[in-house]
């Protein structure tokens, strides 16, 4: 005799976000970095920022740090993203 069993996973997936327009060039842009605030992120993001300025012509690099490394970025940081051309985020651990 067969058994009919149920799927335990979350089949109701949330709607995907809308992709931002891609940049053709980084020259003259403002790029923001959102760090989780851990030790490993600090130097790495600083180095990447300098590379973007010297090698890719980025006009301005902005560094922001989340107030809680395990929670989503603070609202004021998320709101600020609108004024940047590109944003880099990641986990430094």
């Amino acid at each position: 005799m067969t058994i009919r069993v149920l799927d335990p996973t979350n089949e109701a997936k949330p709607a995907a976000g809308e992709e931002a327009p891609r940049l053709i060039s980084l020259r003259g842009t403002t790029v923001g970095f959102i760090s989780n605030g851990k030790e490993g992120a600090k130097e790495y993001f600083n180095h990447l920022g300098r590379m973007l300025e010297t090698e890719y012509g980025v006009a301005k690099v902005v560094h922001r740090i989340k107030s809680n490394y395990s929670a989503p970025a603070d609202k004021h940081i998320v709101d600020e993203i609108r004024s940047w051309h590109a944003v880099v985020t990641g986990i430094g651990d």
Partner: protein
Amino acid sequence: MQQLSSRSYEVDDLMSAQELYHSNGWTDGLPVVPPTESAVRACLERAGLPPDHVIGVESVREQPITAEKLAINAVMAGCLPMHFPVVLAAWSAMVKEEFLLHGTTSSTGGCAVLVIINGPIRKEIGASGGFNALGNSDRATACIGRAIRLGLINILDVRPGGIDRSTLGHPGKFSYCIAEDEEDTTWTPLGQMRGIPPGVSSVTVMASMGPRQLMNEWTHEPEEILETFAAEMRASQRHYSIYGGNQIVVIPKQLRDILQKAGWSKADIGRFLHERARIKRKEWADVGKGAVVRDRGESIYTALDSPESCLVVAAGGPAGGFGAVIAPWMGHKTKAVTVPIGAKYVKREEA
């Protein structure tokens, strides 16, 4: 009752069912009870909830958590319908903002969700706070704790290497649930200490590291017993995380008899440990962490945010001077949450 909305699969037999769940990554590595529609419906009926009732939404990834999916995972974990209201209540606590569900379940820190059951439901479902309280003490706590983990794996994709980025994790990630031994103590149950009315069952959830066991069988002085607990907290602050938050203190009968006889309440214990469990940042230099002491060596860090942050639980077998301290995942970044158990509560939350 409404139709269930989950996709279903037809399998030949019990072993085929196991392979279906294992091959899809839907288990914790152990066999599961095949979740049939009738078993899942029995859980939902016991809780008085429709299948599409949303217990909460995991806010970071916007994942809704429905009663139907929780019931499926509870059945897989071995839960009986009478266990399901406890699972529901635990999840309703885990989705509270202060618990920080995404952070606690995805962190490299590797904590597990500890569920502590209080009130009359313990006796109804056979949840024991006696022998082997932090281990495999009984069916109810084993299955309820496992239901929490399977729900995380399957509903929120908290799989090792996926959302779960734990470096090590700990054995409590299979199942981590205890009941307080309310009958064999004069102390106020944890649920009531945290605002639940007498006679109402509750769960307390905390993002918890593994239990750190201690022993002191050589004194009848309450302060000396509690110094051992304080020392364990200080050790954890030095070796693991210096930041204060909630701490769970599990005290077995042999030790609590001494404390109770001398008139110490849970609140007294919280005050004592808040005062004694604290270190200076410069102590990090003693344990190889001198690089992050910086100019704050004299700063004092308490293991407990406040005396009330100490969650004292009466549990354990009748003999042995073994206690345990269970540290929080990362200080006060997460907070223990206590809620009453019962379908009425869940429905009121929705309203």
